[in-house]
């Protein structure tokens, strides 16, 4: 093999390798979307109609682009290998070709047709998702993005919660989709739970909406997908899809005021005496702040700090003591509580079930 030929083959080899890697990455994701997700946030493992439609479209787009890739790639490889300079060409120049109208026309018209097909396919999915009818039994949730957490309000169900969204599973025969109204309290955010739907931004002064109808129960993960400041990375999304009766029970529990004892505990006194209540609400008590998450049923949540830490007594205490240990840049200040006060507040928070 001559030196030039080696180079030509090496150039080709590395690109064949890329083709295999890119192709290989796509194949397992196609095979068993729901059961082999690869990742809890795989866009190719949809369990809800919008994500499903997007997945169908993406399969079509990937097939078309893969076909284009195969054809052009093969031509390029062929040309690079076949027309490399050989020894003994005597320095004679190859035949000079300046162009060809027929050929140019062919590779203009064919791409136009392909583009039209892709456009029509995409346009159909855009219309289906964006203009989907909102059935009367749809669950309505208002999502408000904050630096760096999520507020969820169920206006018709009188529930306010944070960071962990609960929605009912939707039976394809009798769909109960959830429609989200997306608002922002400060900067831009984006709501993205890949297995349920594509992302939609939450922009101040610019209400948006999206919807989902998951057909399998479970916990679906995601996170903020529009840079919103220091802790953009730990603005995690958790969506709990529940059976209808389970969801109803959850709504029941969440719509009640805080379940606290008649005698006001030491922790509650400290909580209400310090700046905690400027930002946090505990329904049924004096605390009615709105800048931070509603804590009425804090202990019903699995995580704190928008999914950044598990909701364990130890983490809770660490968080109250100094939020920046878990989430540097969090808007919640360290209150500088003494150890006994800290313990009392933590105990009080743990009583908010």
């Amino acid at each position, binding site marked *: 093999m001559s030196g030039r030929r080696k*180079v030509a083959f*090496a*150039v080709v080899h*590395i690109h064949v390798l*890329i083709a295999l*890697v*890119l192709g290989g*990455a796509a194949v397992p994701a196609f095979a068993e979307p729901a059961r082999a997700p*690869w*990742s*809890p*946030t795989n866009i*190719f493992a949809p369990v809800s109609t919008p*994500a499903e439609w*997007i997945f169908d479209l*993406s399969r079509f*787009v990937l097939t078309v*682009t893969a076909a*284009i*890739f195969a054809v052009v790639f093969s031509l390029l490889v062929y040309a690079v290998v076949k*027309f490399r*300079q050989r020894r003994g*060409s005597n320095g004679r*120049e*190859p035949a000079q*070709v300046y*162009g060809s109208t027929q*050929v140019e026309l062919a*590779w*203009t018209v064919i*791409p*136009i047709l392909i*583009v039209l097909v892709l*456009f029509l396919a*995409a*346009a159909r999915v*855009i219309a289906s998702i*964006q*203009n989907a009818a909102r059935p009367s039994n749809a669950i309505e949730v208002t999502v408000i993005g904050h630096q760096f957490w999520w507020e969820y309000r169920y206006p018709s169900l009188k529930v306010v919660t944070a960071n962990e969204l609960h929605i009912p599973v939707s039976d394809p025969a009798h769909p109960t989709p959830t429609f989200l109204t997306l608002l922002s309290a400060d900067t*831009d955010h*984006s709501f*993205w739970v890949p297995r349920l739907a*594509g*992302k939609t*931004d939450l*922009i*101040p*002064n*610019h209400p948006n909406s999206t919807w989902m109808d998951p057909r399998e129960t479970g916990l679906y*993960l995601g*996170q*903020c*997908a*529009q*840079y919103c*400041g*220091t802790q*953009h*990375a730990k603005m995690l999304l958790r969506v709990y899809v529940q059976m209808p009766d389970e969801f109803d029970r959850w709504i029941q529990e969440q719509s009640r005021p805080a379940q606290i004892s008649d005698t006001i505990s030491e922790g509650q006194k400290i909580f209400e005496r310090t700046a905690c209540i400027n930002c946090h609400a505990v329904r049924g008590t004096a605390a009615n702040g709105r800048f931070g998450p509603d804590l009425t049923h804090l202990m019903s949540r699995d995580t704190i700090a928008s999914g950044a830490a598990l909701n364990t007594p130890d983490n809770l205490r660490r968080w109250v003591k100094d939020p920046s240990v878990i989430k*540097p840049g969090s808007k919640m200040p360290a209150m500088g509580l003494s150890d006994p006060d800290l313990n009392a507040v933590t105990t009080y928070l743990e009583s908010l079930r």
Partner: protein
Amino acid sequence: MSTESIAWSTPQVAAQRPVVERLHDWVTTVDHKRLGILYILYALVFLVIGGVEATVLRIQLIRPHNDFVSPQVFNRMFTMHGTTMIFFAVMPILFGFANYLIPLMIGARDMAFPRLNAFSFWLTAFGGLLLYFSFVGGDGLYGAGNAPDVGWFAYAPLTSKTFSVGHSTDFWTLSLLVSGFGSIGTAINIITTVLCMRCPGMTLGRMPLLAWLNLTMAGLVVLAISPLTAAQLMLLVDRYLGGHFFDTQAGGSAVMWMHFFWVFGHPEVYVLVIPAFAFASEIIPVFSRKAIFGYPVMVAATICIAFIGMSVWAHHMFTVGMSAAGNTFFVLSTMAIAVPTGIKIFNWLATIWGGQIDFKTPMLFCVAFLFQFLIAGLTGIMLGAAPFNWQLGNSYFVIAHFHYVIVGAILFTLFGAFYYWFPKMSGRMYNEALGKLHFWLFVIGFHLTFDFMHIPGILGMPRRIYTYEPGRGWDTWNLIITIGVFFQAAGLLVFIGNLLWSYRRGKVAGSDPWDAWTLEWSTTSPPPTYNFATIPAIKSRRPLWDLKHPEDPDWQYE
């Protein structure tokens, strides 16, 4: 006119003068070649700085919950990386090559406005310094400074006084304003030069493609930088004069900033990639030993890309909640770009077809460009299908896609251009073995980093996160991506070493080391200040081909 009028000039002997005097020459120069080299050297410094910033980002993301840097530092690094690479590395390098090459290729003695040229360069240079001065002065005059951390597209209202205290955002705004005026100056200069300074016989239809493509690029710069400048002024009014353009708490619109930014931002992609096409359109024919295939179609496709490119900006905004009709329009315009872009790839392919490819380093980079640009275009189609974009947008898939364009296409052809024109600029040949080593290190690094970067995007990893949770299936990919960075860094070091070594020790190149066909190769390497002893007169697109093949000149066929 006969081709004899292209004279092979004799090399000059430069007398050694004191360093201070020579530096003074460089600072006060209005010569397009020196300004071109100044642009290029200045941009190379920023390329290295931007590369270091990228390396910091990648080390931080090598594993989940890494704490190599704080979130604040990470956010500043990605803002500075993006801003530096777009505005102070790639754009000035391209302007540098345009400055250096256009007069030489169209047979002129300088740009149309030499003093405007110098002014533009120094504005751009000052803009870059201003951006980096934020590290010192970002918090005001009290010692500590901070770089901006609002992201390179600086979405409102994150840039408002409420969310961005101190002056870091102001440094960002002002540096882009100042360098923006520099860019517009250079663009006007390029347009005027190409339209008015061509040598006798060089009709528009006989211009080298590089001149055509840079003309188109310059037109786009004028159209695209203006809205950016307007937006920056509005932002300053918001921040200091109580305006409410983007102040959402007083009824302003965050979405309007997005429109202003992207109506600049997308044409900007073409501002960067069209000169890359220009390099490929000069290098590929010479190293395939064939004339460019379909010259008029290449010109038409370029202009077509520029026109359509002005109407696709909102495909960066598919997730901001536009109407279905709006989204549908931008899908169509975005996909339409694939047609002229495809035509270009096919024409380069047809140029190679039937040729005798000589795999010198410039050609290696251009061949890799063809493969990589093909993939970049196809992932672009995926992102152009709005619903698919609702999943892929703002994920690592997007990062992979546009780095495939900016590194895989633009930087690769730029490296090709460096090696191709280095003998002309310095008078000496680069080292071919080191050039090939650079190529292979960079190809391996590029593909390790940017091929695998598509995957975490598909698996739901958003961009601009300083850390991520384990158990998302992202860990291995991120490790591989980071490993690739070190190959690229090594390649870049070899490249710079090669340039430095060859500048002193390289073989003397002579006027025309590549047996090429355009006018810059008819003068000495490096060319004299006046470029041509006598202004050449030409009869075809490849005047030096005509000179070398009097029995079969191009003008018989064109």
